C-alpha cells in the first residue's frame, strides 16, 4: 500500500533515461489492480461511515484518507510512467526516423506502437504541407551547411544509393565518398555514414 510497486515502475525510467525498456505490462496491471482494490475498500468504508450514528463505533475516515492518498500516488506514478515513455518515443521519431529498429519496436506496447505511427503520420503530413514544392524535411539541415558537398566514410555495408541526379553510388564498409550534403545527412543521422570534417 505504500506505493512500492509504483515506485519501482518509475525507478525503471530513472535508471535508463535515454533508452526505451520493454513495456512493463505485469507491473502496470498489478498497480491498476491495487488501485481498484483500494478503491473498493474505500467505497465500502464510506458506506459504513454514512450509516453510522455520530459518536458510536470507530471513525473510519482516517483510513479512507490514507487509502485515498495511496490511490492518488499510484495514479501519479502510472501516468508519469506512460507520459515519460511517450516523450522518449517522440524523441525517437526524430532521431531514428519513421522506422524504428525491430529490437526497439518490440519494447513498445500495442498502444504505444499505435501512437508512434500516428505521430509519424501527422509529422509527415505537416512537413509535406509547409515550404515550397512538396514540403520541407524538418529532420535535416540541423546545422548550417558550409559547402554543398561533403566527405563521408561508410560505416556499414549499406548497398546502392541512388542520388537525385540518377547516379548510383555503392556504399561499402570503409569506403569514402564525396557526396551532396543534402543526400547523405539522413544517413549520417542514422549512423550509416560518418562525416569527415577536414
Amino acid at each position: 500500500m505504500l506505493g512500492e510497486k509504483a515506485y519501482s515502475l518509475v525507478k525503471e525510467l530513472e535508471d535508463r533515461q535515454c533508452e526505451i525498456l520493454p513495456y512493463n505490462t505485469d507491473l502496470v496491471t498489478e498497480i491498476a489492480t491495487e488501485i481498484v482494490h483500494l478503491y473498493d475498500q474505500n467505497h465500502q468504508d464510506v458506506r459504513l461511515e454514512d450509516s453510522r450514528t455520530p459518536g458510536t463505533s470507530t471513525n473510519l475516515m482516517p483510513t479512507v484518507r490514507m487509502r485515498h492518498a495511496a490511490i492518488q500516488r499510484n495514479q501519479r506514478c502510472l501516468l508519469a510512467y506512460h507520459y515519460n515513455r511517450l516523450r522518449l518515443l517522440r524523441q525517437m521519431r526524430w532521431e531514428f526516423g519513421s522506422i524504428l529498429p525491430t529490437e526497439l519496436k518490440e519494447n513498445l506496447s500495442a498502444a504505444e506502437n499505435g501512437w508512434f505511427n500516428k505521430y509519424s503520420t501527422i509529422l509527415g503530413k505537416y512537413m509535406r504541407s509547409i515550404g515550397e514544392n512538396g514540403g520541407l524535411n524538418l529532420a535535416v539541415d540541423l546545422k548550417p551547411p558550409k559547402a554543398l558537398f561533403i566527405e563521408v566514410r561508410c560505416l556499414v555495408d549499406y548497398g546502392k544509393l541512388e542520388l537525385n541526379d540518377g547516379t548510383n553510388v555503392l556504399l561499402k564498409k570503409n569506403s569514402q565518398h564525396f557526396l551532396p550534403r543534402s543526400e547523405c545527412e539522413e544517413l549520417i543521422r542514422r549512423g550509416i555514414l560518418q562525416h569527415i570534417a577536414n
Partner: protein
Amino acid sequence: MIKLKIVLEHSYYPNYFAIEDIIATQEKAPCKFLVNIPKLGKLNAASEEDDLKAGTSLELPVWLVQQLASGRQPLVTIDLPKSYKPAYREILKADATAVDLHKFGLYFYELGCHIAQFDNQGDVREILVHTFTTRFKQLMDLADNIGLDPSAIDKLDMLERKLFKDGNLARNLLNNWLNNSIIPMGAATMVVNHRKRKRINVE
C-alpha cells in the same frame, strides 16, 4: 564526437510527471500518529493489531506523510528526516563545500523543499539556500575544469549533478566552437547508444 543536444529538462515540483520528484518523495520521514487508524495495523510491522493506534511512531514515505499531516484535521505529526535535523544543519553551516551531499540524500534539495513545509521556524529553507549558494561556485568551477578531480562529482546531489552535466557540456561545445567552427554532422544520440548496446550484446 560532439553531442549537440543540450537537454535542459529539469523537471521539478510541482511538475506532476517529474520522475525526480516521485523518487524524492518516496524517501521516508519519521512521523507520529495522532488518531487511531482502523484496519491499517499492517503498516506497522512491529504490531499484530488490526488498527494503527494513536501514538505509534512510524517511518512513512514523504508523499503519504504530506497528505496525512495537511488539512484541517492532521492525522500525524511529522519529524524532520535525519539530514535536515539541527546537528546536520550545523555541519552544512560550518562548511557546505566540504560535505558529501550525496550521502546526505540523493535528492537533498528536492526533498528539502517538501520537508521545509513542516519546519515552522524556516531553518530548513534557510539551510537549503545557504547550501546551494555556497556550493554553487565550486560547482561552476568543476563544470568548467573537469579533469581536475573526477571524484568530486561523487559528492554532488542529483540536482547538482544535472547542473554539472549541462554546464560541462555547454563548456565543451563552446570550446569546440572556438577551436573550429566547422561542426561535423554526427549520428543521433539515440542511434549511437543503441549501436553500442547492440555491440555489447553480441560480444
